[in-house]
């Protein structure tokens, strides 16, 4: 790009109003949601004064507690599994000599990003139904595995980026100094890959925490996560309790995403 007097979009007429409009459209609904979570009244549209009653209600609601714990368990387990798999996948796609079909492998790893979520959801529903019939197991592992699967590409991307940015000669120096591949990975690659691993895990965690479609299809009876619980609530009475839960989820996501950016930037 030309530096001095080249093309600069900011000089385009209408740039500032359009940008502002976009930001308002993006964030206005969220701001309204957050504001009404503090509403003292029953309505999600009529302001009746400031109160934390809906936060308290959500906090004391056993169904919310139950769904929150389940969400955290699923997101924690799924992000752990997805991140482990993603580290292996990233190593296999950056630390091997170029081979035929590497693009295909790359596409396969990122496949969950491209397949419509509803297709994955239906496929998993049918697949897990077969397993349920065969084994009789109806526990939480179906959800965890399903979440792990679609979280892999999200965990994979920051880890792969970090690996690609790492100096290959460090690993060569490790091997040169009598480190077997496993020890070089543990002593040299992993300590430097760590920010990428954390970033990937956090991204996977947020994605899992937020999922509705696949969870809705895969969950057994009584296995609501926070998002599917909220969806169920919306079908009945809408109170600012939903706003309060959403606001907390939003806060968690924002914190994790910010941490993700800080971590992925610290690679110099």
């Amino acid at each position: 790009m030309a530096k001095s007097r080249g093309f600069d979009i900011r000089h385009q007429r209408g740039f500032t109003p359009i940008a502002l409009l976009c930001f308002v459209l993006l964030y206005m609904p969220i701001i309204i949601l957050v504001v009404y979570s503090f509403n003292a009244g029953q309505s999600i549209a009529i302001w009746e004064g400031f109160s934390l009653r809906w936060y308290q209600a959500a906090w004391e609601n056993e169904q919310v507690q139950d769904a929150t714990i389940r969400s955290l368990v699923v997101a924690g387990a799924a992000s752990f599994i997805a991140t482990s798999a993603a580290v292996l996948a990233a190593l296999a796609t950056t630390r091997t000599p170029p081979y035929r079909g590497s693009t295909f492998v790359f596409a396969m790893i990122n496949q969950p990003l491209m397949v419509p979520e509803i297709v994955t959801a239906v496929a998993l529903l049918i697949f897990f139904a077969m397993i349920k019939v065969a084994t009789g197991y109806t526990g939480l592992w179906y959800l965890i595995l399903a979440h792990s699967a679609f979280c892999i590409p999200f965990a994979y991307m920051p880890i792969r980026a970090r690996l690609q940015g790492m100096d290959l000669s460090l690993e060569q120096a490790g091997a040169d100094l009598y480190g077997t591949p496993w020890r070089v990975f543990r002593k040299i690659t992993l300590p430097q890959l760590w920010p990428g691993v954390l970033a990937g895990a956090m991204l996977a965690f947020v994605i899992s925490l937020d999922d509705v479609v696949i969870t809705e299809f895969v969950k057994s009876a009584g296995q609501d996560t926070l998002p599917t619980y909220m969806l169920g609530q919306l079908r009945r009475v809408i109170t600012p309790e939903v706003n309060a839960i959403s606001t907390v989820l939003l806060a968690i996501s924002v914190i994790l995403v910010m941490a993700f950016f800080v971590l992925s930037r610290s690679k110099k």
Partner: protein
Amino acid sequence: MIEVTNVTKTFGSGADAFTALKEVSVTIRQNEFFTLLGPSGCGKTTLLRTIAGFIDPTSGSLSLEGRDILGDPPYLRPVNTVFQNYALFPHMTVAQNVGFGLEMLDKPRSEVQATVREMLELVKMTQLADRQTSEISGGQQQRVALARALAPKPKVLLLDEPLSALDFKLRKEMQIELKRLQSETGITFVFVTHDQEEALTMSDRIAVMNEGRILQIGGPRDIYDHPAERFVADFIGDTNFVEGTIRAIDGEAAEVELPSGKTVASRRQEGGPQAGAVTIAVRPEHATLQAGEGLLSGTLSNIVYFGTDTHYHITLDDGHAFVIRRQNQPDARESYAVGDAVGVSFAPGVAQVLRD
């Protein structure tokens, strides 16, 4: 000690194939400071990395102390490398870096600590043992990289242009330092550089490489005084090339007829040209200038004063250029002037018949 035999390395395949090493054979002796010298892309680093185990040659064999090591991965070869960018582990301290190799060899803690201390002393870095590698200067990083590679007491130390990132003064210091380390440790050094001066000052023997081949192997003096090929003569130092014709040969001696019609006793390499038109090489400081007729005659076209010496640029009668370099004496007056008719002479055996 290291025996490289007919090693060829081709990268890629088909139209993109690039052959970095072509049938390279060389024997590196115990305890020597051996330098691979050549321009970038000549294959010197490829050869070094082949010895380290990072590159599998396409064909050929490689042995260390009589044992074939081609099948061994880098971590099984008793060979350590000083990388061009040092490749220090950024998440470890100086001492941890130096101790890494010994730890990987599962040496007892006390031995690791003792050796690390010894190595840091050897490279004069004891004070900075607990620093992070990002907190020390380039020259210090260089010393740590050396200590790290020397700590496991390898049979061979490979150095991949380790001085190229240092500034001029530091480079001079490290040249002397490296030579000292080599003689103190008694480890065989294989040193890669594109800097001819570095090669001449440090090496016991030099292999001059170009386009994937080793052109000549010999001591610094041998390579400088008796270049075998035009590339070697041209790459190392300055040289005058004169066309001539071989009239007679006798072993290493050759009678060469110069364009002036006079003949001069020259030196030829074994396996060099035996007859016909040849190029001979004469170093500027090996030739003498005189008024009037010499072996070659011409006109003085330029005189350049350099302080330590003076360069006389001569246009020979056949139009070719010739440069003579003469050391300056105190308070000597310049006795030549541009435009003078001068003669160029050199002693018998000074001119080298080149293999083209």
